[in-house]
């Protein structure tokens, strides 16, 4: 895969770095003292932090992590419900990232240590295969954004779900939360790096509203370091020349219309409804639920479950503000003190796409000290 190594080429990275410096100086000469770019996706945050991009760019350029961590925003009540089912003897299959996120009191991992029947799977296919082989009462606890939703629907449209497997779902949609961030959050954004893998499904067209309605330069970007540097340079270029448009930097994977088959399958199985986001609140038309035709697969119906309002935020934890880009992990009094990747207090410290987890793992001591001094 030669093209991947070219997206990590140090010579090109150096030239892009110089270009970004020059664009920022030019904007500063125009009187722009602060530039804020939000990367929606946890995987972009990983690239930015892992490759030290934040410490590479001029200090007047803020790279802000956004709400792109799908397990961080699953309401605690869903986790509590999954734990309750698991303690009652139902096998719970879920993703590794979801397994360690704390609910109101504990995580599925902690419940497993007490005897609950919880198994981590890589994807829904593994849950289908395991349930078929094990023949025991089982529930797949499925979460995720547009990228993940068709990987579930794929098996439902093929009627491939064994009778003993039901689903507990907390699926959420990304454009509504981005709208929410732009309307409600206190962060004034100069640009958005839109999610690359969500866009493989939705198509680039899903993000055109950011430049059209909100006048925010938007780049759909891949996940290599040069992808992110190009995205930053393109946003700065648009700002300098005073226009906003959608630019698809990840054209090697993302098309304008997206994966039409995945969209069709997802639409057959799910319908859009309002959704509650952990630590944020209710966002209209931001969630998916199973259509009536698939009600017999819905664990909520089958087990007569009621998702209670759990304890989403522990007193003092700033995860909800970190998700909206209103706080940095280092603004939180618990960060790397009471809250660490080994002992996470909030969901942002658990997931590999959680901003606190990424900063804890790759943030680097010097960078953290610098932020602490600010």
């Amino acid at each position: 895969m030669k093209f991947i190594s070219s997206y990590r080429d140090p010579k090109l990275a150096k030239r892009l770095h110089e270009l970004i410096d020059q664009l920022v100086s030019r904007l500063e000469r125009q009187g722009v003292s602060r530039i804020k770019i939000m990367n929606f996706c946890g995987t972009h945050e990983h690239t930015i932090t892992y490759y030290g991009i934040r410490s590479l760019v001029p200090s007047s350029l803020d790279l802000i992590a956004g709400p792109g961590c799908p397990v961080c925003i699953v309401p605690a009540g869903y986790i509590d419900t999954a734990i309750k089912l698991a303690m009652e003897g139902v096998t719970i299959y879920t993703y590794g990232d979801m397994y360690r996120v704390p609910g109101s009191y504990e995580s599925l991992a902690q419940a497993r240590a007490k005897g609950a029947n919880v198994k981590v799977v890589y994807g829904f296919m593994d849950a289908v295969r395991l349930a078929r082989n094990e023949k025991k009462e089982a529930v797949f606890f499925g979460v995720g954004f547009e990228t993940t939703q068709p990987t579930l629907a794929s098996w439902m449209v093929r009627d491939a779900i064994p009778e003993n497997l039901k689903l507990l779902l907390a699926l959420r949609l990304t454009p509504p939360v981005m709208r929410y961030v732009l309307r409600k959050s206190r962060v004034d954004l100069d640009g958005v790096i839109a999610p690359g893998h969500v866009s493989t499904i939705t198509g680039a067209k899903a993000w055109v509203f950011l430049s059209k309605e909100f006048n925010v330069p938007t780049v759909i970007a891949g996940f290599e370091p040069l992808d992110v540097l190009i995205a930053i340079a393109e946003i700065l270029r648009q700002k300098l020349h005073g226009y906003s448009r959608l630019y698809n930097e990840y054209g090697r994977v993302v098309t304008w219309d997206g994966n039409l088959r995945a969209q069709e399958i997802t639409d057959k199985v799910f319908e859009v409804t309002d959704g509650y986001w952990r630590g944020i609140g209710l966002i209209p038309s931001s969630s998916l639920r199973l259509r009536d035709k698939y009600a017999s697969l819905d664990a909520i119906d089958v087990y007569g479950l009621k998702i209670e309002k759990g304890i989403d935020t522990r007193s003092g934890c700033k995860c909800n503000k970190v998700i909206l880009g209103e706080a940095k992990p280092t603004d939180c009094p618990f960060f790397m003190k009471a809250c660490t990747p080994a002992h996470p207090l909030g969901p942002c410290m658990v997931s590999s796409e959680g901003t606190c987890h990424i900063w804890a793992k790759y943030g680097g001591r010097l960078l953290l000290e610098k932020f602490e001094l600010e």
Partner: protein
Amino acid sequence: MCLGVPARVIKINGDIATVDYGGIMKDVDAFLVPNLKVGDYVIVHAGAIIAKINEKEAMEMMKAWSSIMEELKGEI
């Protein structure tokens, strides 16, 4: 969670494909992307192929930015 991993298709058996992640082989759901061929580079997410990678497009983006950088050098 939205992590997508590049891989190469090495076998197709109906709706299931075997992919190679640079040495590690795994069976994945191939139902979401029609007309897959052995040798295609793809993105795999949560055990399913969600998109093909267009290599030509990948190289063109790099070429485009090399020339954009040249142009901007004169401008800035």
